[in-house]
């Protein structure tokens, strides 16, 4: 009996915490479906047009798809920004896999001189915040004449060491004996990588993809620093530019930004949790 109460108690607290974390997100769909007049009225105090306080209606009185109509039918610029985001994220993920997978495999499967030092360097680089790399990357992008070109955001991200670390962790889960046996049987290094490494290290690869997607779908600082032309910006940088007076429209954009991210989150949940656990646990 006492145990039962304890379980209910623990579930209750955790559920309350989870609800508190998720609650603000409920405002997004309701805002995107809210009529502009209603929105103006309930947000009037924030817009400087009234006394008292703003309120929020989780269920709009006059639901409308007007904002989505305006966004999806009447705003061609939206598609450009949307495809900018998609293109950037896709290019970065593809590049990270092409470059990062073999690197991760090299750290996991081979012993070579300087390996520990080099791996340590990769870990430090992945833990540094972007602002530390701001000036260094600006210098190299200027030298390569890539400033104000989408490659200025894509190229440094491709060589990010974070996915290498995550995929490395996935590869280290493979038993060393399997690789030894394959080598004894005369398999080439490339063959071992493609036929043993990739299928058995699947979890780490998925984790790296999910973590990278969520990171680069949400890109703000890099395009802000390196892309001057708004036409190249991703949606995540454009969204905050919409004024609060256009809140309904902004919420519709937010829904469009959120949908792909939630989709990947739902699909890749196991991989995501596994990937985060890789970061903290010692091998």
């Amino acid at each position, binding site marked *: 009996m006492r145990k039962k109460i304890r379980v209910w108690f623990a579930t209750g*607290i*955790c*559920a309350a*915490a*989870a609800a508190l*974390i998720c609650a*603000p*997100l409920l*405002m*997004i769909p309701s*805002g995107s479906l809210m009529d502009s007049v209603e929105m103006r009225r309930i947000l009037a105090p*924030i817009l400087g047009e009234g006394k*008292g*306080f*703003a309120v929020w209606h989780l269920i709009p009185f006059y639901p409308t798809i007007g904002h989505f109509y305006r966004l999806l039918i009447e705003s061609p610029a939206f598609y450009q920004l949307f495809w900018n985001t998609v293109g950037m994220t896709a290019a970065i993920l593809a590049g990270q896999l092409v470059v990062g997978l*073999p*690197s991760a*495999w090299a*750290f996991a499967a081979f012993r*070579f001189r300087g390996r*520990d030092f080099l*791996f340590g360097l990769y*870990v430090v*680089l992945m*833990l*540094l*915040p*972007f*602002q*530390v790399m*701001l*000036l*260094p*990357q*600006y*210098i*190299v992008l200027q030298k390569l004449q890539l400033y104000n070109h989408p490659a200025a955001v894509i*190229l440094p991200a491709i*060589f990010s*060491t974070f996915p290498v670390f995550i995929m*490395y962790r996935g590869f280290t889960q493979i038993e060393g004996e399997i690789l030894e046996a394959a080598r004894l049987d005369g398999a080439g*290094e490339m063959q071992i990588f493609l036929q043993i490494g990739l299928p058995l290290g699947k979890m780490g690869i998925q984790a790296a993809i999910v973590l990278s997607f969520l990171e680069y*779908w949400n890109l*703000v*600082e890099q395009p802000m*620093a390196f892309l001057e032309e708004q036409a190249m910006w991703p949606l*995540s940088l454009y969204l*905050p530019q919409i004024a609060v007076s256009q809140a309904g429209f902004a919420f519709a954009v937010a829904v469009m*930004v*959120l949908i792909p991210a939630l989709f*990947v*989150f739902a699909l890749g*949940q196991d991989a995501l949790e596994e990937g*985060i*656990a890789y*970061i*903290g*646990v*010692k*091998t």
Partner: protein
Amino acid sequence: MRWKSKRLLFLLPGFAGVMLFYLLPFFEVARRSFVKSGNNAFVGMDHYRAVVENGAFMLAVRNTFLYMAVGVPLLMGISLMLSLLLRGLLQRRRLVSAMLLPMAVPAAVMVLTLQILIDRQGVINGVVTKVSEQIAALPVFDAIDYLNTEWALAVVVCSFLWKNTGYMVILWLAGLSALPKEVEEAAQVDGANRWQNWHYIIRPGLSGSFFTIGMLSVLQIFKSYREVWMVAGSYPQEHIYFLQHLLQNWYLKLEFDRMAALTVILSLVLLCVCLLLQKRLEAG
């Protein structure tokens, strides 16, 4: 010999990119922090002195430390408590996913809702006012201008907790699942109570996790600039003016000399944190 060099081909393309985009430009910045831009004359520690004597730098250092001193223990405490409660619950997977959801929410989306909630005439102040009017025993509530007073730090800390709690819960749960079950079971058979269980078994068993998660939390503080900037802009209330604002603003003003010095200082500090952490993340 040939197969050995072939192995290095796996690493080479990636390493070349890391050299080009991270390491070499970083060394270039380190070099520039000691020379005058333009004529490359050696100026010793002049740029560093200029950084340290800058009023904004001292303000940013103080603020960053305060943010860390409040944010890290709160994040660690809350996430540890939640993971201890979550351990062994049937609904655990679903609850953890819900706590992790903020990882999937782009900062720009969150900022939109935050503006409506924390404005001086926003929803939160409205709710608190209503409650204080209903209950006569409570003092009259004076609406708080969260972003333009010292409350700004509280807003930043809350958004930090919101974003990172799920992440840290997973790390604690991973640490907890590594503890041998038999020890706890044996202790229970011997009649250990919950506090003894925590004090003598779980806490010592988690000492490694305490360290790792603490260091990762510190690093997350530095990575949480995106949200702060989006909510409060380049020149926020003075309590939430952090080192990243300084770097960002010097970058926009093309003050690369001081920026080079500050980049070196900040990366040396963070390098120390990383090296401490590294002992535990080391490749086997």
